[in-house]
């Protein structure tokens, strides 16, 4: 097995990315715990083994490509965009994206006057039904602590500079509503089809840490 950096949150202010080197695939203590808990619950018929397998398929099926499709549709269809901004979940459901965790969705539109950024300071709330699982950095202390108090500095670390006359709105998720940023459509894409447009929209643009850039369909982020 390869070593992998397994960073985790340290609220005392010192992040210790700790590399966990797994020798010859031996499961760690917590993996054994997960297996044991699951097997006991299945034995007691409190959950079904198939239910876990099915939910893994659900999780694997949710990727930023779904969010990108929503964004591209909003860019080309003004009526859809209006519905999306009024009720994000219902509009996503129109496109076949189900909300398996029963959360709501508010879609936040970036304009030439307003730039939106999403965060969950208390944990890791994230629009999983439409974006998949969040990246580690979204769940770690530096982003969670600083996105609400110094968003411009945080954005600059992502290489995103927002002019002073543009208002930054940070949304901190805490309850049953999730947020998705509707990034601005880049210039030079007039007449593009939805698929081409969706290929430009990366995960980070829907979190709000980066703008959509006009590139050839490239690095998956």
């Amino acid at each position, binding site marked *: *097995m390869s070593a*992998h*950096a*397994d*960073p*985790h*949150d*340290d*609220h*005392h*202010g010192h992040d210790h*990315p*700790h590399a*966990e080197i797994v020798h*010859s*695939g031996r*499961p760690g203590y*917590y*993996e*054994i*715990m*997960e*297996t*044991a*808990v699951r*097997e*006991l*619950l299945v034995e*007691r018929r*409190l*959950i079904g083994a198939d*239910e*876990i*397998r099915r*939910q*893994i398929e*659900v*999780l*694997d099926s949710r990727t930023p490509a779904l969010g990108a499709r929503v964004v591209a549709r909003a860019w080309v269809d003004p009526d859809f965009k209006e519905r999306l901004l009024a009720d994000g979940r219902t509009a996503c459901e129109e496109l076949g994206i189900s909300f398996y*965790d029963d959360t709501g969705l508010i879609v936040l539109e970036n304009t030439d006057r307003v730039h939106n950024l999403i965060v969950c300071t*208390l*944990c*890791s709330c994230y629009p999983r039904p439409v974006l998949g*699982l969040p*990246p*580690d*950095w979204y*769940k*770690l*202390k*530096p*982003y*969670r*602590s600083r996105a*609400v*108090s110094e968003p411009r500095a*945080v954005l600059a*670390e*992502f290489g995103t500079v927002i002019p002073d006359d543009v208002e930054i709105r940070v949304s*901190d998720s805490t309850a049953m509503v999730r947020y998705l940023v509707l990034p601005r459509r880049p210039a030079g894409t007039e007449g593009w089809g939805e698929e081409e447009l969706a290929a430009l929209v990366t995960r980070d643009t829907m979190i709000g840490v980066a703008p959509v850039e006009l590139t050839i369909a490239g690095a998956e982020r």
Partner: protein
Amino acid sequence: MTQTEMLLKRLPNDIGGLDGGPIQRVEHDLEPWEKRCHALADVLDFHKILNTEEKRRGVEALGAEMVGALSYYERWIAAFANILFAKRILSPSELAAKMDEVAARWEAEPRL
């Protein structure tokens, strides 16, 4: 406010506005057990055996040291164990016995 008051008044996860240091753009593909752990959380919430907010509270209740030392999904499974004990769905000795059984099974037939 005294130091010990503050420990109760600020949950270990309530870090908005604190010093955070530079952002490290780390991400990793989930280990299979981590994905199973996430799926387990979703299934437990679906049945309301252990809802998502209970999970959040359970992670906080691990306390500052464990929140700092354990990885994201390690915190989840530790919290699940504690909550399932409190609800008398599992007992600590049952879980310990099953964990020994799982470990022994792996030793007998290791697989990658």
